[in-house]
């Protein structure tokens, strides 16, 4: 028992330790995702149902005029594709937050939080891992959609990547923030009703906002204020090699706010501490 109290290395953590931790968390999240095939399938089926059925039905009802970033008349399917990509990320973000609630109930979260690395960093890794998983889902969707004549310019597949990373982080950190406030798994149905559905429908995912404005000016303002709208628009423009600066600013701003909120909520001296003992506390 020579040097018990001190290690040879200086205090703190080296860059390679941070990197090892990050890759480890992403790797584990990826493994878990691959083990849950149903999750992958349902993550794909959901947007495809919208694309194949809903869009086909609504094609005749909703005429789409030429609005940026589109330069020609487009089919309704083409219009809703970016909204469906964002929907995949929305569900994924909420699902990872669900798994965090589950992990916390099952005690699995503890393994993560007992790591000596700074907690904010751990949560950030967890967010990145969730985003990486959502990217897999989105690109699988884009591949199938390509056969359905949704063919953005080839460069669009590349330019949309940063947009997807950012929107994935925003929706993931929103999910994490919500998960910190959920005590039990059962409450998650409420998240579906009060977060996912309103966010999705009150956005530009399914219809252009000028159409909403014609119908209801109030709803138009709600849609404008909805961060999900801006995630959709950011993706829509990026898919065609363009940048929607307002959406970029909103999504980036929301990401920072949600992330700080989530890290704050998981801080031991505040968030979790107030909540009292978890499930099987002795």
């Amino acid at each position, binding site marked *: 028992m020579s040097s018990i*109290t001190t290690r040879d290395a200086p205090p703190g953590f080296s860059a390679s330790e941070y990197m090892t931790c990050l890759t*480890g968390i992403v790797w584990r999240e990826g493994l878990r995702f691959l083990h849950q095939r149903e999750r992958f399938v349902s993550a794909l089926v959901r947007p495809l149902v919208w694309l194949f059925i809903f869009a086909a039905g609504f094609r005749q009802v909703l005429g789409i005029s030429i609005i940026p970033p589109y330069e020609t008349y487009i089919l309704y399917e083409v219009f809703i594709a970016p909204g469906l990509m964002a929907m995949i990320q929305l569900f994924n973000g909420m699902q990872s937050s669900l798994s965090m609630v589950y992990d916390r109930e099952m005690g699995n979260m503890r393994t993560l939080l007992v790591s000596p690395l700074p907690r904010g960093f751990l949560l950030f890794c967890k967010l990145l891992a969730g985003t990486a998983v959502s990217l897999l889902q989105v690109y699988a969707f884009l591949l199938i959609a390509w056969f359905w004549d949704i063919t953005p310019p080839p460069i669009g597949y590349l330019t949309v990547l940063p947009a997807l990373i950012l929107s994935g982080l925003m929706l993931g950190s929103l999910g994490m923030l919500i998960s910190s406030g959920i005590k039990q798994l059962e409450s998650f149905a409420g998240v579906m009703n009060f977060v996912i559905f309103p966010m999705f429908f009150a956005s530009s995912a399914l219809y252009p906002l000028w159409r909403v404005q014609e119908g209801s000016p109030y709803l138009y303002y709600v849609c404008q204020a909805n961060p999900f709208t801006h995630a959709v628009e950011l993706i829509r423009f990026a898919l065609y090699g363009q940048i929607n600066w307002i959406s970029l600013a909103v999504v980036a701003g929301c990401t920072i706010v949600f992330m700080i909120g989530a890290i704050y909520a998981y801080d031991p001296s505040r968030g979790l501490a107030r909540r009292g003992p978890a499930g099987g506390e002795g």
Partner: protein
Amino acid sequence: MTSPAPIAEPQEMPSPDPATVPALSIDGVSHSYGPRRALIDVSFNVQPASFTALLGLNGAGKSTLFSLITRLFGIQTGHVGIFGNDIGQNPGEALRLLGVVFQPRTLDLDLSLKQNLLYHAALHGISRRDARARAAELLDRIGLADRAGSKVRDLSGGQMRRLEIARALLHRPRLLLLDEPTVGLDVKARADIISHVRQLVTEQGIGVLWATHLFDEIMAGDDLVVLHQGKVLAQGPMSRVIAEAGAQDVNTAFMRLTGAQTMPGGGA
């Protein structure tokens, strides 16, 4: 030790000498969940290379204490130090020296044994190559080397616990916490785990804090901390605690100590 002092006050030194600094020091820790007080002014130490049993019934505050030591909850009052590193001020260094086995199972059931260990190693910043070597070594030690690739789901309860202990040792901690690790295990698995942990104490000099409500897991040479309704009722070497309670064995000592306090201290 035959010191007559009721509570052995450990050496408190500002600049610690590795030989005397406790593996774990709990100093005046209190914790409340709203109006309910889960821990009231708890103080005790765990020495390196010692086996300290934290004895208490369900609801005594053991798990709350574990959550504080592992930084899952913030500390409201008092201090927790791991080899002199304050968990509030210097959590990184403190947690590096700490291995923990929680009461609920915390393994990824769908991942293999090896993957579970590698994930934990990554959380501690241990490089892949090191992690593989250590994982192989530890799996060998707990007799599960041939199961490295199978899913954790297929293990028995006792094997899962052994794996969790192996995982807790992966980053070579000097202090090991175990929260009722033998709950739900059969006699053989219990005995295996207890002897394994005791070996860690004698062979590797690890300080162990073992929370339990099972008296037969405690041995004569152990240190004992009796926790009841959030308060430490007695602490010290087992023989002394028994003698001071005027009892013949741990069981009677525990009943005498807690029986006197069952009704009053309860409160809200």
